[in-house]
């Protein structure tokens, strides 16, 4: 129990010191929290960059593979179209013209 008749300076210092220690501890905690949030943001950026690179790699591979298949795909679609035109009743003369146009 504090004896108020004792030292008022000691009493005031006690009040101040308790709060100062708490503020110092809180600031340290906040600094640590800020460091954690920065580190978390770095992880998120790293993840995003990883995903971006992975997707770019996959996209380029798909582009390259399909670019290689493009001539074959084009020839197959042209052939299928000619079949449809033939089935639609085009004459041999018309078919010859269409084959030349679509080649």
């Amino acid at each position: 129990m504090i004896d108020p008749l004792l030292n008022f300076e000691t009493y005031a210092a006690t009040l101040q010191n308790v709060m100062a220690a708490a503020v110092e501890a809180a600031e340290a905690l906040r600094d640590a929290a800020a460091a954690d949030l920065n580190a978390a943001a770095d992880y998120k950026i790293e993840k995003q960059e990883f995903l971006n690179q992975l997707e770019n790699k996959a996209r380029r591979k798909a582009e390259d593979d399909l670019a290689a298949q493009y001539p074959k795909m084009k020839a197959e679609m042209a052939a299928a179209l000619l079949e449809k035109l033939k089935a639609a009743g085009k004459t041999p003369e018309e078919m010859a013209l269409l084959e030349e146009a679509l080649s």
Partner: protein
Amino acid sequence: MQPPESSHADEIRQAMQKMLDDNAKAAAEVVTVAQKTRDEAAAALESARQDLLETTQNEATLYAAFFRGHWDRIEKDLHERINRDLAAKLLHTGQPLNEIADLLRMPEAEVLEMAMRFGHIEPRTKKFLFLEPKVKWHKMNTSYARVTYEDQGRGGYVVFQMDSTICRFWYEFGSGSTLVFIDVPAEAQWESHTKIPLADRDEVLNFIGRRAIADKAPGYRYRIEATSVVIYNS
């Protein structure tokens, strides 16, 4: 009975003790709040770390999903491009529009637009006013071209279209003074990827840079690098 002085001293003593207690509680609350913030940040850090770990551990699955998605999209684009090319050739042979649309399973309006653009039929302005594209075509050298955009969150596609040629270029948002990177094939891969002559590459990329700024980033500038068009703030 206590003397008045003694009673007064007790009151002061009690008041001071209460202030000490209140002060201690307030101090503890300051630390508690900060501790809560710290705990939440630590949890966020752990969550982000775990998320990254799981993402990197799932690399093969993610790659396969990305690859399949791009494969399907590009394959669809190529089919459409080939279809448009075939439609253009059939138009040159004088096949009826509806027959071309039916054979190639294309919207008749698209074949009609091609026919008008290639000069196979004259546009009847009043009747076909509604067919005017929303995105304007712009003069590029002796032809007309246009640029449209497909936004997909953190990036998307810049779609360049000239005659029956359609090229899709992936773009991503940058950081700092760079607004956007538009990925384009290097000179060595340009023709195989775009089917556009290498001699036209600079002109096409300059057209894309100009249109992107006019459409999406007024006040920005662009520069052409080896494999990208960079939209930036000078």
